[in-house]
């Protein structure tokens, strides 16, 4: 009998033991894999450009308050003592005020910035003086003057997979002992003594729960919690509990207490920021207190320890008698989704998607968040206004077929993309109309025709008279007969009287097709193609005469890049969106610096710019001036056949902006560039340039100015009814005075 029972026992035990060993081995493999490799998927963070404050700036125009709030700084009515706080004090009865800001710490690609206290002295709204203060400094104490303050970049968004977990991994030796003690005392007082499970704690929790009649206390050790978070679900089942216990033993047997604690402090959950979970004590320290772990006070350490268990901060506050200031919690909403997509596409050329979403890279971009908001605001307002004004734009439209718009702004000198809005609603359509949409640019191409003429042949100037009479151009057994805008209108009943001849300036200012097309055919279409390519147009450009009127499809980004060369005196800066990519350990993986190259001599672009200033002052873009935009600027309207696309490309000496309005499907908008795209450009530019000092376009040394009679293009005399100060490349200026309005000459002619 015993023999039989023994046999049964053996029969059952052996497979059970083998099964148990296999199970333990499997769990060990799972644990080892997790512990030996990267333990967490860390999202990559995308930042805007940093922002500099210096004396002379207008704090309202630069939206200082909004910037600080977006960065999570908290306004305080008391003296500022902590990073991430600022205080505004008004001097009674005067126009003076002071802003005291305790700057946050920040890890820049090339330096670790340690936050300090700064004071901005402001008269009216202008910063007059910046000084660095020390804590506890009183009014009247000597101050250290500084010339510039840098506000850290704003977090635009994060790249992540699945759920979003914000985490900064930290080594155990970098965690303050006060914080470790707080965590251990709150979570697992006998952590250093037990082997993964703490029977005393389990028994204590059992009694407490029995007494309360519900679960009020847990008996899990730090090791158990780590195991649960790493490998198991949150379900309360017996099997899960068994696995948790087994795995805790395995972890304790294979890894030191330090390794377990380090994993725990990086894994533990600290709350939510919008859709992102805050994990690990380092991220929590920055999230709640805007400071690194090394700067936490005793009370702050205690509070972090308490948050893990959900203990109210007040209990700790009372115990430690130290007032606590928790940073205002700001959520991250991607305010530049199209720009981020553009950045992501660029990064994906070098980094696999998995790296972007799991390796905790930091991507520093060129975006100016204020300009981005201005651009988005201008686009939304303009499209709404257009829909209100023109009912046909809103009629019978299926979802996703609404009127669309796009805008890009960049620095012509550096190529830094400062704002990019690729559509009116990212949730509705992720198609980036700045970088992906190829559209006919229409008259936006005309400046390139004149630029080619000025570059190629000295006989052409802004005063050159060009025929405005219809003509037919034959090429490759085809004919082409360009029409003026007015001619097209005539077919619809308009009776505009057209001039037979116009100056190059007038043709450009008023965007007249025939003289431009004629000039292009005279200069050569192939040369026009070459010029456009030099300016940065990369899309295919068929060498056909209609190219002069913008028949080849290009992206708004290409147009912005090409117009930058005009603004920058013939020098091309490659558009840049990413400045640095920083790896998880702070190493710079990639650094992009400004790259500029002279592509054409500066005189011809200046002539074009000078004429395009006239577009805003007198021509098709004068709406910008009527709207109230007064800064020195040049620009060009663009409208394509059948009014499908409306464009405006324009620039001040320091900022280029391109706006587009239309439908995604080829559908008539029915509005010109001046009617639909110019308001968008103007709204943005008015905001973007309000804090900028007015600068004039640089006049190249080979440019001379002459007063000419606009009717003849010859030097004007006092007898001429009007006179215009025209720019010429040295040597091409007119030598003869106006014959029509000069009676002496007329007399001579009669005698002859």
């Amino acid at each position: 009998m015993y023999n039989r029972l023994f046999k049964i026992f053996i029969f059952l035990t052996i497979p059970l033991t083998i099964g148990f060993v296999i199970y333990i081995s499997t769990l060990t493999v799972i644990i080892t894999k997790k512990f030996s490799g990267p333990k967490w998927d860390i999202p990559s963070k995308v930042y805007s450009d940093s922002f500099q404050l210096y004396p002379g700036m207008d704090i309202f125009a630069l939206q200082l308050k909004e910037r600080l709030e977006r960065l999570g700084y908290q306004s305080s009515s008391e003296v500022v003592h902590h990073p991430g706080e600022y205080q505004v004090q008004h001097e009674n009865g005067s126009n003076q005020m002071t802003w005291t800001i305790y700057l946050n710490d920040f890890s820049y690609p090339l330096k670790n910035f340690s936050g300090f206290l700064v004071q901005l002295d402001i008269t009216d709204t202008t910063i007059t003086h910046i000084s660095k203060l020390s804590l506890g400094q009183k009014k009247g104490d000597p101050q250290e003057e500084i010339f510039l303050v840098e506000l850290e970049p704003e977090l635009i968004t994060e790249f992540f997979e699945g759920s979003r977990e914000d985490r900064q991994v930290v080594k155990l030796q970098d965690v303050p002992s006060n914080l470790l003690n707080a965590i251990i005392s709150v979570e697992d007082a006998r952590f250093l003594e037990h082997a993964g499970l703490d029977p005393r704690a389990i028994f204590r929790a059992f009694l407490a729960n029995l007494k309360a009649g519900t679960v009020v206390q847990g008996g899990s050790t730090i090791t158990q919690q780590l195991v649960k978070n790493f490998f198991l679900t949150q379900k309360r089942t017996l099997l899960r509990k068994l696995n948790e216990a087994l795995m805790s033993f395995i972890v304790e047997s294979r890894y030191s207490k330090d390794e377990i604690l380090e994993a725990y402090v990086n894994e533990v959950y600290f709350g939510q920021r919008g859709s992102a979970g805050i994990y690990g004590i380092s991220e929590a320290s920055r999230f709640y207190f805007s400071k690194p772990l090394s700067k936490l006070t005793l009370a702050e350490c205690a509070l972090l320890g308490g948050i893990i268990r959900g203990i109210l901060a007040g209990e700790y506050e009372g115990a430690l008698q130290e007032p606590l200031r928790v940073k205002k919690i700001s959520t991250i909403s991607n305010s530049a989704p199209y720009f981020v997509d553009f950045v992501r596409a660029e990064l994906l050329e070098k980094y696999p998607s998995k790296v972007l979403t799991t390796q905790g890279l930091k991507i520093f971009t060129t975006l100016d968040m204020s300009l981005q908001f201005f651009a988005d605001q201008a686009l939304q307002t303009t499209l709404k206004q257009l829909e209100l004004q023109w009912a046909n734009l809103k009629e019978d439209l299926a979802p996703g077929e609404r009127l669309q718009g796009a805008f890009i702004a960049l620095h012509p000198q550096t190529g830094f993309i400062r704002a990019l809005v690729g559509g009116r609603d990212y949730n509705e359509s992720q198609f980036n109309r700045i970088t992906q949409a190829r559209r006919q640019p229409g008259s936006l191409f005309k400046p390139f025709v004149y630029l080619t003429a000025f570059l190629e042949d000295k006989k052409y100037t802004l005063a050159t008279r060009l025929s405005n009479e219809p003509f037919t151009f034959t090429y490759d057994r085809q004919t082409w007969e360009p029409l003026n805008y007015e001619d097209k209108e005539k077919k619809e009943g308009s009776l505009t009287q057209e001039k037979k001849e116009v100056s190059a300036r007038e043709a450009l200012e008023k965007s007249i097709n025939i003289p431009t097309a004629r000039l292009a055919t005279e200069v050569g279409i192939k040369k026009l193609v070459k010029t456009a390519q030099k300016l940065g147009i990369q899309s295919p450009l068929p060498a056909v005469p209609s190219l002069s009127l913008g028949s080849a499809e290009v992206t708004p980004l290409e147009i912005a890049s090409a117009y930058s060369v005009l603004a920058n005196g013939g020098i091309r800066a490659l558009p840049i969106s990413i400045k640095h990519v920083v790896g998880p350990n702070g190493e710079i993986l990639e650094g992009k610096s400004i790259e500029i190259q002279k592509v054409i001599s500066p005189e011809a672009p200046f002539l074009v710019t000078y004429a395009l200033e006239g577009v805003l002052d007198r021509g098709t873009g004068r709406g910008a001036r009527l709207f109230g935009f007064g800064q020195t600027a040049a620009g060009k309207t663009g409208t394509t056949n059948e009014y499908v696309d409306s464009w405006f490309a324009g620039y001040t000496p320091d900022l280029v902006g391109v706006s587009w309005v239309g439908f995604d499907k080829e559908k008539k908008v029915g509005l010109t560039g001046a009617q639909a795209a110019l308001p968008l450009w103007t709204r943005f530019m008015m905001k973007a340039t309000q804090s900028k000092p007015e600068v004039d376009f640089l006049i190249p040394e080979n440019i001379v100015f002459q007063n000419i009679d606009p009717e003849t293009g010859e030097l004007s005399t006092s007898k001429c009814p009007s006179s215009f100060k025209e720019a010429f490349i040295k040597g091409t200026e007119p030598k003869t005075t106006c014959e029509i309005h000069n009676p002496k000459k007329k007399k001579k002619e009669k005698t002859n």
Partner: protein
Amino acid sequence: MKIFFIFVFLTSGCALFRPSASIDDPLLNFYTKTPPAHTQAALRLTEKAREEIHLGKQSIAIEQLEKALTIDPQCSFAYYFLALSAHQNGDYKKSNGFLEKAKQLFSSFPFWRAQSYYLSGQNFEKLNNEKMAQAQFKKAREIDSNL
């Protein structure tokens, strides 16, 4: 009359012995009137970058100069020192790109304009374009005979 001649002699003599400008001089000294606030801020950053270049910290210098250009995109000095940094890094083509902009913007700073042409000449020498190098040196000397 004698006193007048002595005065003229002394003042012209002083002018002769006036120390010539150097690329290490404070940049603000080259301005005849105080530049606008944003230019001043950009100049201060450029000065810091110049120190970093001297210390061989090119990356930090480039970052400072790019910040200077974000504040004042017309800061001619920032382009010059970006060019100098690129030159020292052996990127002569890139250096010449920056110098083209510097030459445009230095129209009222002959000393620096000449320096820009001179550095451009050195870049072309390194790029084995002797003809262009000599043309740049010639232009530099036309602007500043001390070069």
